[in-house]
């Protein structure tokens, strides 16, 4: 008998599920089985097994395409040769792409800020309404967000159309001259931001409304007794209590707005003269329409590091605040 066997023999008999000692001959098998059973019974194991289908789905739909895009971005135009980071350096040297970066940042940042501001104001107005009227207004204000953006953007395109623009017709009624909404770079940039804000502000509104409803009334009452004015309550109670929701919403919206495709594609198609292109529409133009898939993949991957760094900082802040205030 080896030392190990002796040690096993000296141990107390393992107890079977019935509470009786397990048969001595089946000892090692039973021990292995019970260890497996213990692992299988662990909450973390069960949780892992239950989330496994979702993990596999995410792996298949997100991780694989991402890795494939990284692989594609490192090939030459004919996809026959590995070129490393050449596609990225080539893009950075092109003035059109520099404009795309600038336009994407201006488009995403200004649209998100405006959406956040308008959403915040609308949420406050709704919150102040009596609950009966609130429901109807909430439903109406959510309409832009509910309509598929491709369809609503088409409607906006008609409104801005140079030949029969309804907006210009209205302006003419006030004596203002026709505006080349989609024909002039500045106005076209304004138009895509406006439509994006129109579409996205209700999302901010509904998130902020939920956040506002979760702030206990007693905090406002305590602040009122402490001597706070409306603006001081907003600054010292509302905003700090909503910071996590604001951060999450801004982060989420920034990612979605940076990756926006349909509004720019339908409204301006990146024009005039590529001045309204964002990463997604430019990647489509370069990769699909011009047939340079590796370069298109490089364009689409460009925003990833920017957003990843931003997301890490925002999520760290949220995590820290959640621990501090238990929100």
């Amino acid at each position: 008998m080896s030392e190990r066997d002796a040690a096993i023999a000296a141990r107390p008999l393992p107890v079977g599920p019935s509470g009786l000692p397990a048969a001595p001959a089946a000892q090692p098998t039973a021990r292995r089985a019970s260890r497996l059973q213990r692992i299988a019974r662990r909450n973390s194991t069960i949780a892992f097994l239950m989330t496994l289908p979702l993990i596999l789905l995410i792996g298949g739909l997100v991780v694989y395409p991402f890795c494939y895009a990284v692989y594609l971005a490192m090939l030459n135009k004919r996809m026959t040769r590995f070129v490393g980071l050449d596609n990225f350096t080539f893009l950075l040297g092109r003035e059109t792409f520099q404009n795309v970066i600038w336009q994407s940042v201006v488009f995403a940042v200004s649209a998100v800020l405006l959406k956040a501001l308008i959403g915040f104001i609308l949420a406050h107005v709704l919150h102040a309404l009596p609950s009966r009227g609130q429901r109807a207004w909430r439903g109406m204000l959510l309409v832009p967000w509910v309509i598929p953006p491709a369809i609503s953007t088409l409607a906006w395109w008609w409104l801005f159309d140079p030949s029969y623009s309804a907006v210009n017709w209205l302006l003419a009624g006030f004596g203002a001259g026709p505006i080349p909404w989609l024909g002039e770079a500045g106005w076209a940039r304004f138009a895509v931001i406006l439509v994006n804000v129109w579409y996205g502000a209700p999302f901010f509104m509904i998130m902020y409304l939920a956040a506002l409803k979760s702030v206990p009334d007693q905090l406002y009452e305590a602040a009122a007794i402490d001597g706070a004015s409306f603006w001081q309550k907003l600054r010292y109670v509302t905003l700090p209590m909503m910071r996590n929701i604001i951060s999450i919403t801004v982060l989420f919206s920034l990612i979605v707005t940076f990756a926006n495709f349909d509004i720019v594609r339908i409204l301006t198609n990146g024009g005039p003269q590529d001045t309204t292109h964002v990463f997604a529409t430019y990647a489509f133009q370069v990769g699909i329409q011009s047939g340079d898939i590796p370069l298109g993949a490089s364009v689409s991957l460009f925003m990833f590091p920017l957003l990843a760094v931003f997301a890490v900082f925002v999520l760290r802040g949220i995590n820290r605040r959640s621990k501090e205030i238990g929100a």
Partner: protein
Amino acid sequence: MAQVTLRKVVKAYEGDVQAVKGIDLDIADHEFVVLVGPSGCGKSTTLRMIAGLEEITSGEIAIGGEVVNDVPPRDRDIAMVFQNYALYPHMSVFDNMAFGLKLRHFDKAEIKRRVDEAARILDIVPLLARKPKALSGGQRQRVAMGRAIVRNPKVFLFDEPLSNLDAKLRVQMRTEIKKVHQTVRTTTIYVTHDQVEAMTLADRVVVMNHGVIEQVGPPQELYHCPATRFVAGFIGSPGMNFIPARLENGAGALRLHLPGDIVLPVPADRTGRYGAHAGRPVLLGLRPEHLTESRNTDRPNVAPFPATPEVVEPMGMETLVHFRIDGAEICGRIDPAVPAEPGRPLPMAADLNHMHLIETESGRVL
């Protein structure tokens, strides 16, 4: 510091529901007044109207002689401690306490001096850097009180501040609140549904029910001389017993005829008070401590009567016995040394020197 006056104060909500029905109350400077009553009696609404958190439908509220009906809460110079503490979760304990002073543009040195002083009184100096999440319920309550103290306001308002604490901590914090009041002597209005809190803390207790004040008085007065059946039943634990009876006049002496052929003599000194009600149904009110095991029956106005306990509750220093008189559930307090068992007859005695007679229709104590 200031006196608080309420004149015919009414609070009505939509649908003409009146939460407070025209109450009058005078609270003196330095006084500790407790508003007590069951849920929905209007006590919290009254406090919130004094704070300015609820608008007054009609009437007048004055703090320090100045009518404050249209004065916003921040200009009333009051401080309030809420049931859920209402501490700002994103601020440290120091900032929570200093917030009101910062908004009033006190200089930093003065803010620090006041916060340190309040923290010392409340024994929370080591907690000043923490966030509320890192505090226990009792500590949060102290911070909430600290926030009120630093302001040195005219009036402290407490809205059920101990409701969220466990029984032991509640007793401890009750003592703390009393100590703080004895130290700072600020006029205090305190709302609770717990009559023990009301009795132990108050200089005067205001008992409210259905939006009206039933009685105002020092705790002992409310306990011994309740004005209404509601006050008699609400103050005291266990509550006063109410036994339906009939007051009869016979041979110059009044007698109470209780169900079960029990006849109790009314003390001679009360004949004048109750004489006019002879022949009418009344309610006999007796506190449990005046229904004891049969002893001292030779004393004047102590009448023996038979009882059979249904439930016996030994409390240590006393034993509560529950029995019935014609359906009415009665509670008595007996010496713990007396053997009492459910179902075994126990001779009891009623000390009628402390009896109350209540008019059946109006609920008024005669």
